[in-house]
C-alpha cells in the first residue's frame, strides 16, 4: 500500500455508510443540501478517505465520541457474506466492488470483524484455485487484454459459466489471473524450445 499506488487510491474512494454524531453547519453539501446544517444522525455515504479520519479523529470530547459512526459497506454486508459462505465461486465480486479485498482489509483495520475475516479467507482460497484452473485452460494465443482473456475462456468446456466467473473477478484477482496465465504460457513456450534442441 504505497502512497503512489493507484489501486490503493481508488480503494480509498469506495463509499461507506456513515452517521454523523454532531450538527455541522458548513457541511450540508455532503448531504446534497449546500448551505444547510448537517444534522446529528444524518446517514450519508462518504468515501473512505473522509470517513476513516472522521471516525478515528479525537474530537476532544469528554465521552470520547467521534465525529461519525460507520457501518460496513453493502459490498461486505450480511447478504454478500451469506452468499460467500454458500459458494464463493458463485458471487461476482466485481459487482460488489472493483477493489473488494482491499476494501475489506481496510474495513477490518478499522473495526474487528473475526467472522468476516474467516469468510474472506475461505473465499479467497476457493476462488484462487478456480482462477488458477481457468488461467491454465485459456488458449495459448490469448493477448494480454482483459477482454481477450475472457472471450477465449469460452472454449474451456465449462463454457459460459467460466466466462461469467472471470468477468466477476475483482482487481486483485484479475492480477492473479494474469500472472497465472502468463506464467503457464511462458512455461509452455519454454518447454517447446527445450523439445526442439
Amino acid at each position, binding site marked *: 500500500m504505497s502512497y503512489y499506488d493507484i489501486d490503493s*487510491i481508488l480503494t480509498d474512494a469506495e463509499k461507506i455508510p456513515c452517521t454523523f454524531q454532531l450538527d*455541522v453547519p458548513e457541511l450540508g453539501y455532503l448531504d446534497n443540501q449546500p448551505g444547510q446544517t448537517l444534522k446529528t444522525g444524518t446517514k450519508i455515504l462518504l468515501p473512505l478517505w*473522509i470517513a476513516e479520519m472522521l471516525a478515528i479523529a479525537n474530537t476532544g470530547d469528554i465521552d470520547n465520541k467521534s465525529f461519525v459512526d460507520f457501518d460496513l459497506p453493502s459490498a461486505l454486508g450480511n447478504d454478500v457474506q451469506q452468499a460467500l459462505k454458500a459458494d464463493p465461486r458463485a458471487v461476482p465480486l466485481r459487482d460488489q466492488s472493483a477493489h473488494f479485498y482491499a476494501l475489506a482489509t481496510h474495513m477490518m483495520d478499522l473495526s474487528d470483524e473475526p467472522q468476516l475475516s474467516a469468510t474472506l479467507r475461505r473465499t479467497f482460497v476457493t476462488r484462487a484455485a478456480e482462477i488458477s484452473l481457468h488461467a491454465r485452460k485459456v488458449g495459448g494465443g490469448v493477448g494480454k487484454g482483459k477482454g481477450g482473456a475472457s472471450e477465449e475462456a469460452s472454449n474451456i468446456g465449462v463454457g459460459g459459466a467460466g466466462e461469467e466467473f472471470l468477468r466477476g473477478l475483482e482487481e486483485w484477482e484479475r492480477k492473479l489471473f494474469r500472472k497465472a496465465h502468463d506464467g503457464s504460457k511462458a512455461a509452455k513456450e519454454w518447454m517447446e524450445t527445450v523439445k526442439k534442441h
Partner: protein
Amino acid sequence: MPMYGDLGNKLVQHAKRTQNLPHLPPYQAELVRSVAREVRDLDRDVASLLEPFQGSFDPSAEQATACTLLVNHLAIRRNKRCLLAYHRTRTDKLEELVWNGADILDLAGQPAPGPNGAAATSDANASSSLSPQEEDYVRQYSDLLAAYKGQWTDIDLTGSLEPPRDLFIDVRVLKDAGEIQTEYGAINLTKNSQFYVRQGDVERLIAQGYLQKLG
C-alpha cells in the same frame, strides 16, 4: 452533485488507464488545473473559517468547526495525493520509454500509434501528448541516462536482451538517418537503401524506427 475529490479521482482513473497502455495518452492539463484550483478554494475556506478565532482556536470547544476543518484538510490532502500519483505514473512511463530508446521528438510527436486511439480524444492541439514540464523531464532524463551509459563504452546498457541469432543482418532504411560510423567504416543511411550490417551497430536505429530488419 460533485464533491471535493471527485476531480482528483478522475485523474487517478486516467492514471489507471495509462498503466495498461503501450503509449502515453495526452496530458490532462485542464483536469490538473481544476484540481489545483480546488485545493486553493479549500485553503481559502479554511482561512476564512479560522479568521474569527484570531489564532486561538480550541477544537474541543468548537467541534462543528473542527469537523469542517478536518474535512477540508482531508480533501486538500486527497487532492495532493491524486495529483502526485497521476504525475508519478506518467514519469514512470516516460522513464521506461527513454530506457527503451524512445526519442524526445517521437514522444512529443505522438499521440496515436493505434488507429482509433488517442487522436479522437485529444483536442485541437494534438501536437504533443506531453506537458512542457514533461518534455523537459524527458530531455534531462535522457541526458542523465546518456551520461550514465557513457561510463561503459564497450557495452550498450539499453541494448536488446535477446541473444542475436546472426551477427550480421539485412536492413532497409525507412527514413534518412545520416552517416553512422561502424567498425567497417562509415555508412550513409539514405532512405530506401539496403545494407548488410552488424546487428549491434544498428539496434538502436531499428528501435527508433529508422531502419527495418529484413528476413
